């Protein structure tokens, strides 16, 4: 039995947490999210290289939220998700105990959000090499080639909104896509509507995205849809020097400004 199981069992036993959100064995050698509410379930939690999912998306789901306090097994992107949620007032300090597993495999138990910040202070987030490669490839293309690439991807989108469901930051009870007065985005799946949806999603994540890539993971038709918010997060880092989900007191890059911000494209 690993450290993670011991801590989970203790938290549940002492009543410090009603549920521990973590990872369990799935079928065919995969991992799946697991929710441990008792000793027995706590023993089944696992943590290894396969556990890349950002579990922060569960903390506000209506089935889980009432079970606060929660404990959550966390990788770096989960930590960032939690911090970002906290800075958007979706989690309060003390709502959640984070069990962060660091590079060395040690479990660091963070009861306060400030402890998560300390863990994150040691980390320089980087995007996955394969994502970087694809972004570079797209950047090297002509606009026409990029358009063709994305339009052919958009054609296959079925508007299932799995990307939204998987995102730790898509917590709105009413998404912009559901607004029908006016009907900003058409309900049916068609290329232009799909394009509008994905642009909207990326814009709404700009300055907020914690670059976990879960949206792309979740896409049933394998659109690399996570590249859009990640590309923006990288640009924002370059232009404004801000990285989302590292500190609670950060403000959103797009709801602040500096008078001398870049504007070389404005005539």
């Amino acid at each position: 039995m690993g450290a993670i199981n011991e801590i989970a069992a203790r938290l549940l036993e002492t009543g410090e947490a009603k549920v521990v959100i973590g990872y369990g064995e799935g079928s065919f050698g995969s991992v799946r999210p697991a929710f441990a509410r008792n000793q027995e379930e706590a023993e089944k939690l696992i943590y290894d290289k396969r556990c890349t999912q950002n579990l922060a998306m569960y903390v506000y789901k209506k089935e889980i939220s009432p079970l606060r306090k929660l404990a959550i097994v966390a990788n770096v992107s989960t930590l960032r998700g939690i911090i970002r949620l906290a800075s958007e007032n979706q989690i309060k300090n003390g709502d959640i105990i984070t069990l962060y597993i660091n590079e060395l495999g040690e479990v660091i138990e963070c009861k306060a959000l400030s402890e998560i910040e300390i863990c994150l202070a040691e980390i320089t987030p980087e995007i996955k090499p394969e994502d970087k490669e694809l972004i570079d490839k797209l950047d090297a293309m002509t606009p026409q080639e990029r358009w063709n690439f994305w339009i052919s991807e958009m054609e296959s989108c079925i508007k299932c909104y799995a990307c939204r469901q998987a995102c730790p930051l898509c917590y709105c009870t009413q998404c912009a896509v559901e607004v029908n007065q006016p009907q900003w985005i058409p309900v049916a799946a068609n290329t232009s509507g799909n394009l509008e949806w994905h642009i909207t999603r990326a814009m709404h994540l700009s300055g907020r995205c914690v670059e976990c890539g879960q949206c792309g993971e979740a896409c049933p038709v394998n659109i690399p849809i996570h590249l859009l918010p990640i590309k923006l997060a990288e640009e924002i880092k370059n232009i404004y020097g801000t990285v989302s989900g590292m500190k609670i007191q950060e403000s959103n890059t797009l709801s602040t400004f500096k008078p001398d911000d870049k504007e070389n494209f404005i005539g």
Partner: protein
Amino acid sequence: MENDFEPKIVAFVCNWCTYAGADLTGTSRIKYSPNVKIIRFPCTGRIDFMLLLKAFSNGADGVIVSGCHPNDCHYTSGNFHARRRWVVFRTLLDFMGIDINRITFTWVSAAEGAKWAEVVNTTASKIKELGPYEAYRKITNEIWES
């Protein structure tokens, strides 16, 4: 060769600077291309990026977004917020291969009647040269064809 394509261009402008500047263009009787039509907003900060997408999906060939110069915003900072929004939006559109040459961002003050005419004319002639936004039309027409 004569180019008889008449582009459709929508201008999203703030009430205090560019709208008033365009009024001054009128008062000064400076002529410009009738291709551009203005929609009035209180501030550039009010201009939702989704409206630009709606413009393209409804057949616009070009878009102008214009407001008060930095530091001159009637509401102090709406244009500053808008500016960051446009930086990100442009990056995204460019990354998706949407033709950002079709969007003109500019600051035109209430005193710059002549500049407004120039902005309109240069945008109109640029869009004329680029031609109709066929690529976008193609994906929007698909809705009706299917």
